[in-house]
């Protein structure tokens, strides 16, 4: 019983069970695409025929812009790399950036949101104004500036990829902050928090034992939404030339930028794979996010009610969250 309950309470698994029809289709499709993306990212070293920065095989140089052939299933790039390999390795870079960006912004965002939302006062007001200001600014532009500032212009694997990840973090923290804070403010007014206050629990205990865990229900949702934005931002940075260099890591946006010239010369095989990879990765994560969003909002959930709800759901059912409450997220 306890076992099953735990499984049911896992975010995505539970929602999968809950979903029906189109929503289930979307969720399953999203999970499949994202699963594909993650598997490819993790197993890139075994899946990719060559390394991402490999220029020559046993027969010497691969050559630049070679059309697809048995040796190079998707041809080679203008720099003489194997397109298929770089596309596969690109998943690893994207996943790495997503994971780092999300971990950092979740932690920073949760902490700030919790403290700000629970304690309130002038600190809260200042943080809210700052977060709103940053949130309302075009994230890509901010990410560009942050990426340059953080990396000091270096684009090796560690400085480059980390800088991209941190830049994306900087852009996302306000979003997590807003969501967590809004939740905290809502939960703060719940009777069970008041009851903890009446009992005489310390502020610290209330914040972490009672408020925090009840304020995170929309995180899986916003994480998926931000994961897709992280991929898009990373690719856009690469596309604008603020990204990662080919010998340091494979990055789809960079490869796409490199292939712009090829496209007009009729060389399609260098542009389509990284482009499609970006679309697939974003699509997968977005589909999951969309479905979670629908399922989290009783108004949008397809018309079936779950017989067994989780504790978090019990609350969720009384208070719909939808993306609109959190402000729009791309």
């Amino acid at each position, binding site marked *: 019983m306890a076992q099953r309950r735990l499984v049911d309470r896992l975010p995505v698994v539970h929602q999968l069970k809950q979903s029906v029809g189109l929503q289930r289709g979307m969720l399953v499709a999203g999970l499949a695409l994202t699963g594909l993306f993650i598997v490819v990212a993790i197993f890139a070293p075994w899946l990719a025929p060559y390394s991402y920065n490999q*220029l020559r095989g046993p027969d010497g*140089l691969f*050559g630049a812009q070679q059309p697809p052939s048995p040796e190079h299933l998707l041809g080679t790039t*203008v720099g*003489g790399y194997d397109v298929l390999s770089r596309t596969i390795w690109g998943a690893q870079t994207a996943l790495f950036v997503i994971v780092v960006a999300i971990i950092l912004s979740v932690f920073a965002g949760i902490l700030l949101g919790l403290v700000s939302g629970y304690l309130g006062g002038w600190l809260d007001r200042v943080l809210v104004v700052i977060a709103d200001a940053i949130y309302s600014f075009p994230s890509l532009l901010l990410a560009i500036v942050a990426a340059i500032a953080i*990396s000091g212009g270096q684009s090796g694997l560690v400085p480059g990829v980390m800088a991209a990840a941190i830049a994306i973090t900087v852009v996302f923290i306000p979003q997590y902050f807003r969501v967590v804070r809004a939740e905290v403010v809502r939960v703060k007014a719940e009777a069970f928090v008041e009851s903890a206050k009446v009992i005489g629990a310390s502020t610290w205990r209330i914040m972490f034992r009672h408020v925090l865990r009840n304020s995170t229900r929309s995180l899986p949702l916003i994480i998926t939404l931000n994961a897709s934005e992280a991929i898009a931002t990373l690719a856009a940075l690469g596309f604008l030339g603020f990204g990662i*260099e080919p010998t*340091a890591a494979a990055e789809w946006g960079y490869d796409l930028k490199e292939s712009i010239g090829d496209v*007009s*010369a009729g060389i399609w095989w260098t542009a389509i794979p990284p482009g499609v990879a970006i679309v697939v990765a974003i699509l997968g994560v977005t589909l999951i996010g969309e479905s979670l969003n629908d399922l989290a909002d009783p108004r949008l959930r397809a018309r079936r009610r779950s017989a067994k709800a989780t504790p978090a759901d019990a609350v969720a059912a009384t208070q719909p969250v939808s993306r609109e409450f959190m402000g729009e997220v791309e």
Partner: protein
Amino acid sequence: AGGGGGGNDDGGNASGEPLIVGTTDKVTTLDPAGSYDNGSLAVQTQVFPYLVNTDYNSTEVVPDLAESAEFTSDTEYTVKLPEGLKWANGNDLTSSDVKFSFDRNLKIADPNGASSLLYNLDSVETPDDTTVVFHLKTANDQVFPFILTSFPGAIVDDEVFSADAITPDQDIVDANAFGGPYSITSWDFNKTVEFTPNENYQGLLDAPVNDGVILSYFAESSNLKLAVQEGDVDVAYRSLSATDVDDLSKNDKVQVVDGPGGEIRYIVFNFNTQPYGATTAEADPAKALAVRQAVADLVDRQAISEQVYKGTYTPLYSYVPEGFAGATDALKGLYGDGEGGPDVDKAKATLEAAGVTTPVALSLQYSPDHYGPSSGDEYALVKSQLEESGLFTVDLKSTEWVQYSKDRTADVYPAYQLGWFPDYSDADNYLTPFFLTENFLGNHFSDEQTEQMILDQAVNPDPAARTQEIEDIQARVAELLSTVPLLQGAQVAVAGTDVDGVILDASFKFRFAPLTK
């Protein structure tokens, strides 16, 4: 060659359609005192007069606006102007304009300007309306006339320009303060500029044979490529990517025109921090030299040229590129297989002889954003070539340009990429800035003999002897290997098949005047 007067009678009338030239270069400012970049020079060349210049397909400095220009003493360079010169707006163009132009350039010393090229100019004197005397600091400066053909050499109208500040572009255009082959009649900054023939032009170059030119700016080379391919622009000049040029060369709607390029690419070694460099733990000049030589032995310039640049850059085996008096192939015989190809055995032997343990760990830097989008591919290939031999392990890194510029002179990079575009069309421009003890590379290279030879050639008034000296300097540096030259860029323009008069020469100026359609 004299001033070839207004031959084309009915020029300057907007009767025909103007030609459209597309570029990805950008203008900094129209005022010559405020710019030190190709994009601005490309415009200034068309609209400002220069005292001296190089004629089409020649590297010899000859009078342009001037009637005559010559050394009248060791430190005096005297220029005579013809009578009755006029600016396009009708103002008189006299020696006072000339003096004004140089004085203000030095006075303003704009951070973005090229006043530093006037390092040898002491003062300008104007005995009368048609005579200008340049007083120089050092005697017999052979480079000075070349400098007059380049950035700081543009003459401006003293009635329009400000003596102590950069004059706004629109003011210049509104005042029609032009004296070159063209006037600008419409100025949409970095978008479109319309050039109309200047009827008052009396310089060396032929007056425009077309009815005007529109310069259209692009941000993306791929868009420029598509534009010329679709016939939206007549000529695309600077800078199409190698892929673009390669693809366009197969297209029979357009012609690809190329000419010698002054642009070079090379690897700089920091003599302090390179393997076995002066400040490393195992400092040993002989071993350090062996490492540089091994690199020179191993790089396959031809492969880079073909794979990365598709022939738009060609192998460079010396310091002065082809097209200049004194250009040699100094490294060709010394390194590699003797014919320009790489030679692993030779590199191995060199390293062994010097007692260097292999593989040598070499840290190599490049800038991804300053020398075109292909730098990454270029250096990936260099790394691959060096490592393929088993003699090197290369740690390749890239740094965004601004940081790169700071780091490279702060001894952060043991070996790194750099490129050079000449300030003026003389071989000296490939030697003086590089191989004197005080040089812009800041790589701690210092060789007394080289230094002396460089200083000598700069003041040698005998052209033949000077050329010999320039060749000797290259031979000397080729042995010491302060830098390893890699590639020389060709100038490439792509034009519709119906366009004539695209001339790309060692002046590195793309002149609009001879274009016709």
